[in-house]
């Protein structure tokens, strides 16, 4: 694979992401997010990061989006709600756009600094990755694991009364 293909895929991902964050409908936004994540996965494959690509497709584009889908299924997607969403975005987009735009110019023009040699993307060995994660970066990996456990406990705590509430809502 090549850099060019990676850049093309990443550009697609960027475009899909920009569209995703500006959609009024949550379903559309989620589909665009999925497109963006899939395109990123393709970009990873293009950069010979096969393991990262597979993980991207399985976890990000698979599991994470699936979780979103479950939640989006409960969302009110009527015409009135979409109109409200559009109105909210219309009234609020200026200042964020300005502030975010502040960093665009320096990044566009400032990043092309030093001379960097050309070269094909180099693949990484998955065995090395395992040695890295459970060797030198053992502590960081442990911390991520701890964070996931904290997340799990938090979800369990927040969700302990959700069932009855959702049923109530359905009856309304």
């Amino acid at each position, binding site marked *: 694979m090549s850099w060019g293909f990676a850049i093309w895929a990443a550009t697609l991902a960027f475009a899909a992401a920009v569209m995703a964050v500006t959609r009024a409908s949550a379903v559309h936004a989620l589909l665009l997010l999925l497109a963006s994540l899939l395109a990123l996965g393709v970009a990873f494959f293009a950069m010979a990061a096969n393991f990262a690509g597979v993980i991207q497709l399985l976890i990000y584009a698979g599991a994470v989006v699936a979780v979103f889908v479950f939640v989006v299924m409960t969302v009110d997607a009527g015409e009135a709600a979409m109109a409200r969403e559009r109105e909210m975005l219309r009234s609020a987009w200026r200042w*964020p756009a300005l*502030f975010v735009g*502040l*960093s665009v*110019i*320096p990044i566009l023009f400032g990043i092309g600094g030093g001379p960097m040699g050309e070269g094909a993307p180099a693949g990484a060995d998955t065995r090395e990755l395992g040695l890295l994660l459970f060797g030198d970066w053992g502590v960081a990996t442990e911390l991520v694991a701890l964070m996931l456990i904290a997340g799990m406990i938090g979800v369990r705590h927040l969700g302990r009364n959700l069932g009855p509430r959702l049923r109530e809502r359905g009856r309304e």
Partner: protein
Amino acid sequence: MLAYFLLLVPLPPLGGFLLLALDPYRLERRAVMAVALAAGIAPLVLFLPVALAYFAGTIGDTIAPAFTLNFGQFEIALAMQLDALSAIAALTVTVVATCVMIYAADYMASARVADLRRFFALMNLFLAGMLSVVMAADSIVFFLGWELMGLCSFFLISYNMNSPRAFAAGQKAFVMTRIADAALLAGLLLLFLEATSVRIADLIPAGLAAPEQRAVVIAVLLLIGALGKSAQLPFQTWLPTAMAGPTPVSALLHSATMVAAGAILLIRFAPLIEAHPGVAAATAIAGVSTAVFGALCAVAQTDIKRLLAYSSISQIGFMLLAVGMGAPGVAMAHFVVHALFKSLLFMAAGVLSHASGGTTEIRRLRGSAYAAPISFATYVVGAAALAGFPILSAGWWSKEAVLGAAVMAGPFGQFLWLVALGTAALTGVYAYRPVWSALRSPVEPLPAVKDNWLAVGPLIFLAAASVLGSFLVGPIVRLMGDTVPHAGLGIEVMGALAAIAGLIGSVVVSFSPVWSARIKRARRLRAGMQMDAIYYAFLVRPYRRVVHKLSGRNARKGNGPEANNDKTDGGMGDPVGTATVNLGLWLARVVTAPFVPDRFDVVTMRSTREVRRAGVWARRLQTGRLRTYVMAFALGLGVLVILGWGMTWG
């Protein structure tokens, strides 16, 4: 491999402490005993092979690093070490502690389970502290263990919580040793600044290389620390009252650990002491004067435990004399021998006093020799070692070595030798007194005590060690890198004669009515020369007065319930704590009070209002909305990126 074995040695007692002190479940009496004994004996099991390998020369000096930190030029390295001193001392401590723990299992058998847990937890913690002191390779572990012992000694001495006397004794021990510990801490920190390392191996050369004045200050501070822990003059007052604790506590505190830690400190840092003749002389003088003082007071005691307590500080005085005379190896030998026979004496005295009905008065011991013959025999062996019975007892050999070292140290040493010789004779006088008393036929026949092997076993072992220890003195001195002093036959004969004179003296004192009446009358001596009262009059009372004066105004001003019960809480505020408040009040009166009706006040108030208004305005930033904060984040990010761009332009 072996290095890490060293780190394990103090851990079992520490674990025992944690288990006994923190385990929330009710432990059975047997479980408590088992944990305590296992934790108390494990160090010996762990350390014995290491020590034997060291003595056999299989392994050399080792340092086991536990933890290392570097701060610039400073190096903080916690470690344990194995060298001649730590091998000998740790082996002695573990042996004695094992004996004491086994004995304590019998002695404390009738205590409540909760008390038992508390007792053994603290004993184990205490043991861990002492082991870390003797095995420390750096000043931090050393000081930690040192302080741990101080803390545990407080709790153990006040073990009997219902008795105000025991509590006061613990408090006294704590405060007196604390004063000296402050000096020790200062000394160790100064050494650390000289050496930029906490390794003892680095501290000593750095202390030797330090400029004269600073080195003297360091040596003196270390000496004060040792004097306080070892209850030497002028800190000796805490030890006799510390007898309020149970007998195993005394046996552990006053033989191999606590008080001996001062001697260990001085032996460890002996090069620093010896480098300055003045400090060395001060050490020797402190040692000899304590030896004489302790012996004199011991002669006058009527209580066997107090007698032994004074004998402890007297014997440690001999160790200090040896260090002051430049023979730390000899001091080490005396430390080992003393630890063996002193723990033996305390434990045998405990059995004897049990046999005679629970009293520790010497007079009442009558007939206990017939009630507990084995314990009595071991006591006799211990007393002979204490008195330095010629040739047969280990005490004679080590004391001879100390005296020889003094004689060979020049005219000054010979003067000290004379004093020490007199002390040795006095030692004999008091050492045998309980023996004669116990031998007298009882007023009414005492019931024979059934010997429990838990109690008698350690006694017999230690008695054997007190005799066979004779063969250890030479090797220990040589292992420490010293030579055994041989001051000539005449000097040695004089030492033997002194011991025999002591034996005769004790017979006279015990059986001659004139002399025993004199002993009875010697109240001043019995009360340790009333040093307590002198300290109270010259140090404590003036201090209390100053405190009263400093806090007097507040006490009178106070209203509410506290003002009325001045008497119950002593009527003293904390002068240091109230100093800042008083200063603030004084400043308010002097500086701001004149301005109050003035414009100054108005200006101040206006600026306050402005601050308040600014606060109200600033609150508007806090909308509580996530989006606002994210926008602020984006703004900050943009500014940072632009700044970074600007700085790397071109």
